[in-house]
């Protein structure tokens, strides 16, 4: 008994020492981030995206102004905050990127394959990113509001949760390896705890974002793709089920949080 007590005391001391070390290392970037928020270079991409929305393009020489993002044809304001959602015309739960592919294909005649097989920041996939900047900007300040009462959305949420904890690859990582505890960092970068509503809202509600480290604009598809790259898995396919499922999990978990779109990131 005494031995056990001693072990507990020692253990507690070690935990205390470890936590004080962690707090001494806390890096506070609030001031830095605040200063970048005004004049977020993502605005340059929003301008490009708005222009693309109203420009007649593709084999059908049409604009995207009749694109239905879930709130009716042409309604952009607030639409992204309610995505991913189920669309009856495609019989699929779609995130913004995959829905834009549908619109570009049906309205403009642009082959989705070109986007799925393309590269980030290039060609039609690059244009999708600019349109994402514009559309998400029109939900800036809105509450994240994904309809989990829709059984098809809820099903994707459950799959997403499973995928979130799925450990695989050369380094045994899952999303949860980095994103299931509060207040942690990878190098100097803060990691939201996606398993809590606050953390999920912080993560989902701050992408897409302009990344200052490489002056690029990244959509959530791009963010997830690079997370998997760092996890050392095989390459996720653009707009594939796993990307939608994880998006539904994050957005659904973050329901009620604020969309600060587009964001600005390290």
């Amino acid at each position, binding site marked *: 008994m005494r031995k056990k007590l001693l072990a507990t005391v020692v253990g507690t001391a070690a935990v205390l020492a470890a936590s004080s070390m962690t707090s001494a290392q806390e890096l506070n970037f609030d001031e830095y981030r605040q200063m970048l928020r005004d004049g977020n270079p993502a605005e340059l991409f929003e301008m490009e995206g708005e222009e693309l929305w109203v420009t007649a393009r593709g084999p059908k020489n049409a604009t995207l102004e009749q694109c239905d993002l879930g709130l009716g044809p042409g309604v952009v304001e607030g639409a992204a905050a309610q995505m991913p959602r189920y669309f009856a015309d495609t019989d699929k739960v779609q995130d913004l990127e995959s829905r834009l592919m549908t619109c570009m294909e049906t309205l403009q005649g642009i082959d989705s394959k070109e986007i799925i097989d393309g590269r980030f920041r290039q060609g039609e996939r690059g244009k999708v990113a600019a349109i994402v900047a514009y559309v998400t900007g029109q939900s800036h300040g809105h509450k994240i509001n994904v309809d989990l009462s829709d059984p098809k959305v809820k099903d994707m949420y459950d799959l997403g949760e499973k*995928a979130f904890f799925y450990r695989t690859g050369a380094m045994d990582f899952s999303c949860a390896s980095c994103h299931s505890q509060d207040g942690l960092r990878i190098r100097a970068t803060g990691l939201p705890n996606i398993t809590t509503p606050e953390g999920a809202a912080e993560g989902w509600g701050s992408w897409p974002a302009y990344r200052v480290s490489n002056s690029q604009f990244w959509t959530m598809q791009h963010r997830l793709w690079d997370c998997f790259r760092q996890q050392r898995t095989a390459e996720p396919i653009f707009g594939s089920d796993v990307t939608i499922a994880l998006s539904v999990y994050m957005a659904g978990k973050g329901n009620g949080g604020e969309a600060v779109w587009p964001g600005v990131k390290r």
Partner: protein
Amino acid sequence: MKKLMFAAPLALFASVAIASDLEARVEEMMLSSFKANGIASLDRQKRDEIQKACSSPTQPDAETMKRLEAVEMQTIQWPANGDYWQGGSWEEGQRIALSGRGLTWTDNADTVNGGGCYNCHGLDPANESAGTIGPALHGYAKVRGTSEEIVKYTWGKLWNAKAYNACSDMPRNGFGGILSEEQIRHVMAYLFDPASPVNK
């Protein structure tokens, strides 16, 4: 009450069936949503026993953990010549600890893998840009000493962290071919050499 007792096993059965169906569907999704790219093959989407056991918010029961850990312990290769760190270079170890490169689909087979240690651990107290996913290891040998026990434990932990905690977030560096024996020796020197900045 009687009714409830009757209904409960059925409900349990149904939820188990749904759970196993979900498990099968997520496994299928983790394959069909991915494509091979360079060195990142689709084999990576399949889980070994320990990855599968640790793929949920809660870890397995203590007995299962012990059994899994014992299996992993057998995979550890101890240095044949008994040289744990003296033959290593802390400078090399520092480079390995700082580098997070290797094994992604943008790397190739010739890429020298890093250990990515700083992603999760503080090591050199002067380096503030260190992660906090794992414990801070400032003054590693200064705090823990260089007894055979701690030296062997550290080697084992670096080689296969799952031997000590089945669901550890730390990669199995030696077992998984992430770091070579020589690289692990350099990282050991970074942790144990009194001249290493970790111990300053």
